[in-house]
């Protein structure tokens, strides 16, 4: 029997660092031995579909990192959302540019109607109307930004499904911005460095002329840390992070129990960020 704690993502990731092997290559985010060992992971992620008779969505195999955002935890505590956003800004040297036209946003707050424009806005509950929702890159399983990029500067990290960027390869054509149905990408219209409030030496700053977005804290995962926003919400369950393809992961337990929604599922990008509203 597997120790319950062992399933905790943090421990798993931490253990790999202790093992002393070059971290990025072996971050284990899965307790499923098959998935963790990288051989297959074809274990059907969702076996029981008896009640619905629809066309199944295919999900890629291997580790697929995703996130559940439990808004019920944020309704009582919008301050925590601000803190989570601040943590991301600090961790990634996200510049704070006052002019909304040139803004750089990785994770930000917006109304329900903005985050879920394809859902009906009529007669929503007070909670939904009065609260702000976090928006961020969905690290889609079928990312249209990756399809559009002519240089592979935006790509899927095979071992964990993160949609990552190479700031040194990006030519700044902004095709990816047109292609993303979620407005998750920002372009550096000018040198962002003067707008960095608190400089973090452990993360690169960007220059002008390239696109950037949330990276699911790939750099922190490599060190065995949770994403910065998830860490802020620790213990509350407001943000749950883990492997969507691992039937025993914490995130899958939440997904199995709760009704969740994704942003614009009709776009076919298969977002990996789920919301409990």
């Amino acid at each position, binding site marked *: 029997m597997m120790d319950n704690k062992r399933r905790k993502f943090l421990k798993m990731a931490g253990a790999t660092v202790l093992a002393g092997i070059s971290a990025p290559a072996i971050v284990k985010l899965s307790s499923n031995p098959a998935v963790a060992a990288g051989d297959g992971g074809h274990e059907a992620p969702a076996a029981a579909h008896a009640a619905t008779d629809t066309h199944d969505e295919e999900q890629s195999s291997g580790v697929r990192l995703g996130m559940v955002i439990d808004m019920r935890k944020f309704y009582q505590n919008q301050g925590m959302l601000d803190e989570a956003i601040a943590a991301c800004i600090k961790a990634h040297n996200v510049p704070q540019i006052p002019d909304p036209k*040139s803004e750089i946003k990785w994770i930000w707050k917006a109304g329900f109607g903005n985050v879920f424009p394809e859902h009906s806005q009529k007669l929503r509950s007070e909670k939904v109307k009065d609260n702000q929702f976090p*928006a961020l890159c969905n690290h889609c399983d079928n990312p249209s930004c990756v*399809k559009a990029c002519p240089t592979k500067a935006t790509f899927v990290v095979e071992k964990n499904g993160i949609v990552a960027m190479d700031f040194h390869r990006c030519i700044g054509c902004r095709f990816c911005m047109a292609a993303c149905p979620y407005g998750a990408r920002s372009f550096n219209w000018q040198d962002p460095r003067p707008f960095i409030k608190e400089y973090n030496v452990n993360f690169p700053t960007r220059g*002008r002329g*390239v696109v950037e977005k949330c990276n699911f804290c790939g750099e922190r995962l490599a060190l065995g840390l949770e994403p910065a926003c998830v860490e802020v919400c620790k213990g509350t369950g407001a943000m749950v992070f883990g492997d969507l393809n691992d039937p025993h992961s914490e995130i899958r337990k939440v997904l199995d129990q709760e009704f969740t929604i994704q942003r614009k599922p009709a776009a076919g990008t298969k977002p990996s960020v789920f919301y409990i509203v």
Partner: protein
Amino acid sequence: MIEKTLKGKPAYWIWLGILASLIAIGWACYFRQYSFGLGLTGMSRDVSWGLYISQFTFLVGVAAGGLMLVLPYYIHDYKAFGRITILGEFLAISALVMCLMFIMADLGQPLRGLNVLFYPTPHSMLFWDMCVLWGYLLLNLLCGWVILTAERKQVPPPKWIYPFIYISLPFAVSIHTVTAMLYCGLPGRHFWLSAIVAPRFLASAFAAGPSLILIACMVMKKFANFDAGKEAIQKLTTIIMYAVIINTFFFLLEFFVGYYSEVPGHMHSLEYLFFGLEHHGEVYNNLVPFMWAATLLNFGGLGILAYMKIAKVFDYRLVGTAAVMIFLALWSDKGLGFVFAGFVPNPLEQVTEYYPTMNEIGITIGVWATGFLLLTLLYKIALGVEEEVEH
């Protein structure tokens, strides 16, 4: 043959001088943009493509429009186009050079542009667009030059050039189809996500390209004693007329789909273009005057052409007026409205309007001036050769 560009009347030199000054202004503006970044433009996080990409899109159409001269001559052996086919090929060259310059002006990291070659990415439509644009440019350079050289020597063009000419025909269609695919394959941009975008692009291209050639013919008739021939001009107006009708029809189909289905995403951009989009008590409508002007010009130009056909009159001034009207209409539609409106509203259904800055307009004019300079020089060569042959 280049030496033909060195002799000309004063008007020729004044024209070149004006273009050269505009080009100089364009470079000065580009230098500013290069040192500061694209923040000097009116583009934003929400409207992330602006004038540069919209001009690029329109000019790909102008380049493809040359097909309407090349195809009748080479495939249907339509002799009346003999004198102007070369104009179509040279127009394509100038338009494509402008396209490539607009792309470079739009890149955030222009020095890394070659990354598209170093890391070829077949699933990106931009990669294919680059391939077909360069392919078409090289084909036109080759065919144009070889044909003109043969004409000068008064021999028929060499046999080996014909396969290249025939390849260039589907290539012309491909450049605008692939350019349409940049837009119509993006999930979440409802205005662009329409299968009719590519056909619509082609229809408007087959009107815009020949219109510009007609305008050039009028100018050269006045200043350079060049007569394309009444038959050729009349045929061109027929081609333009049908292309405009088809383009208008396609556009109206978009209206039907949007307003009959009443799917919000399919109506928003059209509403923004023609009536103004209301959002939180504010009305956003900066493109409305352009779109209605385009509508009037479109039907006005069409009316003139139709009148000439029905009343069986032929008047160079009418032809010129109609060509200018139609060219401006298609420019407003594709060179402004189509690209900007695709970003309104943004994916979070917020509205940001786009207003180009003076610096951006300076660069845009500079690129257009470069294209016209190139076009002038190429047409000067073509005319020079014709004159030489006639004497």
